């Protein structure tokens, strides 16, 4: 089978104003899809991206169920039903466990885990009506191996792993196929946040991460986007409920 094209398909990518989401949106657009790009706030970057790829900008805070369902109504009337959902948005904050405040805990869980749950619930009627759908959930290597001081983030991302497995089982009989990706360290704006937090230059942050990756470098967003495009291929029905680890062979946990 050749590289998939998505002509005639509507793809929703959440958290698309920057980083991986933006590149995922560009990748699907380059392969022919009509791409709906979502982010939490009405960010000029989101509209610039939508214009550049001939897509549609849809603002919603996905942690709020009502906002998600209202967004799907707008998309449905302006663009059409969603064929492919790429749940990519995420919120992260880190702190030692004992001092992790409960507002942050809930913001992380409500954005990452609840947000994906609402998105899939809202996407299902359209996918059922068209008789097929593809859902790709972006989890994280930390959702698999855990990470110190990232309890909320890791727990939310591990929750997504179980969500993918469960919905993989539940929806595959309807040809609605759910899979996930667990990226390792990828070159996104988050790394600048990490570098600032550590008080070091960005280049040094890259080196610190790369040192622990057998392939000797951090990944780039295109490598996640290609994986998402493979998992969303409508010709594939054999991959169900799987989490693809794209992490440069960073297999072992480390503390």
């Amino acid at each position: 089978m050749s590289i998939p094209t998505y002509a005639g398909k509507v793809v929703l990518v959440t958290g698309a104003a920057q980083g991986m989401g933006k590149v995922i949106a560009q990748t699907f657009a380059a392969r022919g899809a009509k791409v709906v790009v979502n982010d939490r706030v009405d960010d000029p970057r989101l509209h610039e991206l939508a214009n550049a790829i001939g897509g549609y900008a849809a603002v919603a805070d996905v942690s709020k169920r009502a906002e998600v369902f209202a967004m799907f109504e707008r998309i449905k009337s302006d663009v059409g039903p969603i064929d492919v959902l790429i749940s990519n948005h995420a919120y992260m904050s880190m702190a030692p466990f004992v001092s992790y405040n409960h507002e942050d805990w809930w913001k992380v869980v409500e954005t990452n885990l609840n947000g994906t749950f609402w998105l899939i619930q809202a996407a299902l009627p359209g996918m059922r009506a068209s008789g097929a759908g593809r859902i790709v959930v972006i989890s994280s290597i930390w959702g698999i191996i855990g990470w110190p001081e990232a309890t909320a983030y890791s727990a939310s991302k591990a929750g997504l792993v179980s969500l993918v497995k469960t919905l993989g089982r539940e929806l595959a009989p309807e040809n609605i196929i759910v899979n996930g990706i667990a990226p390792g360290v990828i070159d996104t704006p988050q790394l600048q946040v990490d570098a600032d937090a550590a008080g070091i230059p960005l280049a040094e942050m890259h080196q610190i991460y790369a040192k622990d990756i057998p392939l000797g470098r951090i990944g780039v967003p295109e490598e996640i986007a290609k994986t998402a495009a493979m998992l969303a291929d409508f010709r594939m029905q054999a991959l169900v409920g799987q989490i693809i680890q794209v992490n440069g062979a960073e297999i072992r946990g480390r503390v």
Partner: protein
Amino acid sequence: MKMPDSSSMTKSPIAIVTGAASGIGAAIASELKTRGWLVAGFDLRPATSDCDVVLDMSDYQAVAKGVDLVRQSLGQINAAVSAAGYYEMIPAAEITEEQWNRMLHVHLGGAFNLAQAVIPDMVEMKSGAFVGVTSELAIGGGSEDVHYAAAKGAIIGLIRSLATEVSGSGVRVNGVAPGPTDTPLLAADSPWRAPEYLATLPSRRLAKPEEIAYVVGYLIEEATFTSGEIISPNSGAVI
């Protein structure tokens, strides 16, 4: 105006696919051909590839010689896929020493023999991809599959360890773990073809060889930040 011969302008990448004469191996060879690769097919019988090598994958020397032959006739090897294998169900208590050894030598030995013959050059080139075909049964286990699952499970250990060893040289090592797939390895009366079994699969059908081959094509060409990973297209049999 005479255009230059395109074949002299762009060089096709070169892959070895074992078990290329039928089933999943044949589908992988075909997938790579579609993607513009030259393929050398290793099998017990001719595979109609760009360079057929007829051999038994459990024969260490024969594999080394076959790989040399491919280098001489096609050139430097960019990817290798270990797909040769066979399947038989036997209750654990009845597996003979000969059956046990044969299973391990063909599957685990075949993967090891191929890896040792191709990977040193890939490390030298600082580029290359190795894909081992293992099995969903190595992850989930199966009744009367003890020797098959043990051999396929050992391939997972080989892949993960080799990945940590050679990824620093830019060589990626990954695996694909198919679930029951519609190939000649599954006899017409195989329990994996029974309608009652298929009804338990979330996808409600066997995997197709083309789907397995597509994942292998992805691992070789597109999964440039993926190493040490096992992807299991298994129709939801093991999640």
